[in-house]
């Protein structure tokens, strides 16, 4: 979602200071690190300073990942097998996707406890659509269909009033799928789920931002409510299968061909490398602060190596039984990469992203800069629930259907955990979409590895996961208190 065109006229560059600015040579101004002067040593010292100042970034999550990998690969035989490791991305996918959405809400210092059950409810819409030729009207009893439409219309009104145009387009699209019964098409059914999420999120955001109910309470209430609505949708104890629907089922259960797996790797990692390198070189040439080329190349090399190793590994047959061959990158990895890149660009390259960070860092300062902070809140909840709905679709694909408790239980808490373990602050203003990916992997590896230990009960899984979360939250809190103000 982008901001409307700024209404303020473009100002002339620092008119009153022109004389003095020209007089002061750049070196005299003393921005020693700027003007393309960053070298490796300075960058490293800067990094150390930031870590000591509490800007730990991805460090704890990466350390946790390495620790878990080492522990499980040395203590069990099965952990490092292809069949097991290939499971990690598909097991982690729902948590990662819901977590990526939650980053937006957490950036504002808010919480969305309803993301899990909203994801379940949204995926139920999809499951009913594909199972009943797109006709939700006859399937949804007791005024539920009417309520569905009312929710969408209300969300549409809010989105239009807040000038959240991407939200408006999404909701209108979902509404059309809903009333014209074209959701028998699986892709359209998936989009119905996503736009259901958008509607739910925008209404949640409205209750938080314009009515002023604390997000903890709003989303706690909705967490409960969506659970009830889901049961009503499905009929208690019932479950709608999605296994026989190819596209939906493919997300978590089929793989990209080996050749295309390489292509995906080259496009994403190569694209990342080319972009960061180009940026660094160009900024340096323009006398702007830039990361040293060596660091950019180093980071790219590590990613490329890890990626190449993963694809190479995944491209080998991992089916221990004779018969059909299982190999290649799971489709859901591509989905996660697309969402990751799109949301990262949104947060880092657009005014919307900038204003979101500002609103989370200091809402009053953002307001004085002319930013409509409540509107940002509504947008953040809208994005969060939309991504949660994608997570719900993936969860359905993984479970082979939508049961009445879809998205309930610990779904949400693990997703919040993923974002926080990855380094997103619960106090707002700090976090990235990639945090949910790293944290999601950590949170998934724990049960994956523990279940391979026959003598360690499942109960340990919760304790250890909780321990990781505590450590991450402690790092977050301590880093905050170490800041100067």
């Amino acid at each position, binding site marked *: 979602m982008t901001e409307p065109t700024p209404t303020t006229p473009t100002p002339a560059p620092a008119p*009153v200071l*022109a004389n003095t600015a020209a007089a002061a040579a750049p070196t005299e*101004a003393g*921005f020693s690190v700027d003007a393309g002067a960053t070298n490796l040593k300075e960058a490293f010292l800067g990094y150390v300073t930031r870590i000591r100042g509490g800007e730990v970034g991805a460090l704890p999550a990466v350390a946790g990942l390495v620790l878990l990998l080492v522990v499980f690969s040395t203590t069990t035989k099965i952990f490092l097998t292809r069949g097991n490791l290939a499971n990690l991305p598909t097991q982690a996918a729902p948590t990662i996707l819901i977590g990526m959405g939650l980053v937006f809400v957490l950036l504002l210092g808010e919480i969305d406890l309803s993301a899990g059950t909203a994801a379940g409810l949204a995926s139920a819409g999809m499951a009913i659509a594909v199972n009943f030729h797109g006709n939700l009207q006859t399937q949804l009893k007791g005024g539920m269909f009417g309520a569905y439409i009312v929710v969408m219309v209300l969300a549409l009104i809010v989105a239009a009033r807040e000038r959240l145009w991407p939200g408006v387009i999404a909701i209108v699209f979902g509404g059309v799928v809903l009333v014209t019964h074209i959701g028998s098409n699986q892709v359209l059914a998936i989009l119905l789920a996503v736009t259901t999420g958008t509607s739910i999120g925008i209404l949640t955001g409205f209750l938080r931002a314009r009515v002023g109910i604390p997000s903890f309470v709003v989303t706690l209430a909705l967490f409960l409510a969506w659970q009830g609505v889901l049961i009503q949708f499905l009929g208690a104890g019932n479950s709608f299968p999605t296994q026989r629907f190819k596209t939906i089922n493919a997300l978590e259960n089929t793989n990209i061909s080996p050749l295309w797996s390489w292509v995906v790797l080259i496009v994403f990692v190569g694209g990342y490398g080319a972009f960061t390198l180009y940026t660094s070189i160009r900024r340096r040439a323009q*006398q*702007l602060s830039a990361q040293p080329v060596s660091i950019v190349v180093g980071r790219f090399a590590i990613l490329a190596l890890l990626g190449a190793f993963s694809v190479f590994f995944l491209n080998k047959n991992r089916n221990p039984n004779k018969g059909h061959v299982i190999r290649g990158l799971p489709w859901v990895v591509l989905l996660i990469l697309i969402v990751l890149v799109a949301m990262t660009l949104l947060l880092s390259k657009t005014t919307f992203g900038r204003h979101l960070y500002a609103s989370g860092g200091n809402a009053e300062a953002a*307001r004085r800069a002319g930013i409509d902070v409540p509107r940002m809140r509504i947008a953040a909840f809208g994005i969060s629930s939309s991504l949660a709905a994608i997570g719900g679709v993936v969860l359905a694909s993984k479970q082979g259907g939508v049961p009445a408790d879809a998205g309930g239980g610990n779904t949400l808490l693990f997703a919040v955990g993923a974002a926080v373990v990855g380094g997103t602050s619960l106090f707002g*203003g*700090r976090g990235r979409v990639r945090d949910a990916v790293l944290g999601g992997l950590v949170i998934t590896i724990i049960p994956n590895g523990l279940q391979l230990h026959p003598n360690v009960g499942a109960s340990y899984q919760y304790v250890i996961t909780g321990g990781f979360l505590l450590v991450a939250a402690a790092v977050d809190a301590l880093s905050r208190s170490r800041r*100067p103000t």
Partner: protein
Amino acid sequence: MSSTPILEMRGINKSFGAVQVLHSVDFRVYAGEVMALVGDNGAGKSTLVKCVAGIYPMDSGEILFEGAPVHIHGPRDASALGIEIVYQDLALCDNLDIVQNMFLGRENLTSVRTLDEGTMERRARQTLAGLSVRTVKSVRQVVSELSGGQRQTTAIAKAVLWNNRVVLLDEPTAALGVAQTDQVLDLVRRLATNGLGVVLISHNMNDVMKVADRITALYLGKVAAEVKTSEITHAQVVELITAGRTGNIGLKPAEAAQSA
């Protein structure tokens, strides 16, 4: 000096709940002049500034810009008129860097409508160099890493970055060292010389007497007096601030006593 003030406020009343903070305040600023706004703690100086900024709605009263009535409903209206404010609490986002803070809400965009970091960074550096900021290592430093004075300078740079007509500075030198304070006072003078209307709020009477052309004294939310700096002494200003009157300048004795 032009006779129409560039910015004028007439009969401003403002209450927070039952407490009336501003009592029909008249206030004006002329282009090319420094107007000092003085008054004791809680006199209502910051509140008046925030009314101009569009942060607080006024209960009654009107604002004129170059003699024409204007309606300021939000910060964007104020900046569209060319009114910039350095807030007492600075209003910076700790989690953003200097450049990001300076351009917050009015980012430069590229042709594909993404953030134009290069242009913003260059302009930020230029402005800061003009303020002779020597101690900031990089304009990409996050504000939470800055010292109090560096923050204050960032907030000032944020305000003078734009092509303004009026700049209001709410205690801009409170956290600054001697040299940096002189820099800012210099800047204040320079802004006026360049034809801007400047409002300086300060508790330091030496500074006020040094740079201001006129002084408006607020006493318990009322304008005690608006005088030319050349026609008043340091001691008289202090008396206006503390008692609301001095000699035959200021509130009438009854009024001053009643307010107190």
